[in-house]
């Protein structure tokens, strides 16, 4: 049983690493792929903790729906976050 | 897509219904009465609006002789898959990475789109090759260890054994 504890610990570390990576990352596409990695690891973790229904929902929503919605959002806006020249200004906002 | 008669439309609908019902049976993998009845109803409801996406050729491809060749194809394919994996293992483990990659092209004799797709998928899973693009009947293949740049020679190395059987099936 200690073996499975080590595996759970490894997966938790991997999940935290992916989460930190996708928060810190400037490129939004990489952040979205990182979010997919988080939900992959999370659904394995839920199965290891014997909660298959939660794992099913996590797999459905986290992998497919979130990724697709975010990809469509990125397509309609800009991909790199911190480029001043690409930033869209709102119509009523005064430009500097 | 050519226009179908009423019988053709019904055959296409029947094909979609039976296919969906078989998929349902495999997914639930029980033969309890309520499951089977629910599956038949759901498959009927889904097959009504979507049957024109399933097939263009109803059932006249289905002949017993083709089934024998299809089984032979599966065995040839599985053997090629095992050889491919041993090849990948040899390349990955050896410390010097013995690779010489490149993209080669060759022509195929196949005509139908489905046969082309099957051949492309098989090429992706066989030793050292990965299909990058298909334009009309020209395949562009990324080859991890290029042995020759001549189209005929590369076709003989990569796709001869599959195309021979696929020409008999389709």
């Amino acid at each position, binding site marked *: 049983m200690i073996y499975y504890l080590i595996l759970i610990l490894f997966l938790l570390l991997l999940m935290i690493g992916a989460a930190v990576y996708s928060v810190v990352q400037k490129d939004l596409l990489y952040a979205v792929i990182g979010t997919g990695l988080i939900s992959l690891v999370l659904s394995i973790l839920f199965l290891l903790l014997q909660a298959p229904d939660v794992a099913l929902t996590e797999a459905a929503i986290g992998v497919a729906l979130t990724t697709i919605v975010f990809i469509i959002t990125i397509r309609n806006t800009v991909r790199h976050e911190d480029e001043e020249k690409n930033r869209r200004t709102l119509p009523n906002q005064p430009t500097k | 897509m050519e226009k179908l008669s009423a019988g053709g439309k019904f055959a296409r609908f029947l094909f979609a219904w039976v296919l969906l019902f078989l998929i349902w049976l495999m997914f639930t*993998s029980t033969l309890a009465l309520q499951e089977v009845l629910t599956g038949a109803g759901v498959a009927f409801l889904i097959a009504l609006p979507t049957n024109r996406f399933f097939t263009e050729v109803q059932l006249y491809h289905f002949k017993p002789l083709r089934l024998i060749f299809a089984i032979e194809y599966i065995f040839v394919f599985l053997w090629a898959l095992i050889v491919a994996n041993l090849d990948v293992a040899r390349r990955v483990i050896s410390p010097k990475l013995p690779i010489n990659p490149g*993209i080669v092209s060759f022509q195929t004799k196949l005509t139908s789109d489905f046969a082309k797709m099957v051949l492309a998928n098989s090429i992706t899973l066989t030793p050292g090759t*990965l299909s990058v693009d298909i334009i009309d009947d020209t395949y562009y293949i990324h080859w991890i260890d290029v042995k020759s740049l001549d189209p005929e020679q590369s076709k003989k190395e990569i796709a001869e054994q599959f195309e021979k059987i696929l020409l008999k099936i389709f």
Partner: protein
Amino acid sequence: MNDILDIFGMILLLIGGIFLFLGGLGIFRMPDTYNRLQAGTKATTLGGMSVILSVGILEPGWFIKTLVLVIFIALSNPISSHALAHANYKRGNKPFLKGGPEYDQYRKTFEQEGKETEENTNEKVKEEETA
């Protein structure tokens, strides 16, 4: 009889684990995206197929469902790898070539196609302007 099946399943399980490991290692070691796709796709396809099939052999009641999963992996994995390779070439990432530029026979066709579509769009723009 049952023991032989069990031993066969265990061997298949071990082989599958080794190939899944080799897939990860191949993705880590190879020099460019196409070679990574080659190693990753082939090794994980056979590895996943044999692990899932071994579960079906060790637990005979589950065989049909594991067979569905095996067929699904065999159909879906090459399609996704083909889509990724095509997308990667379209983005302009040229393959790593050891033997020189004549080893890339796709580039000529690719550039010609790009020019043709560009000309078409230019003509369309001109037509719109004249209209």
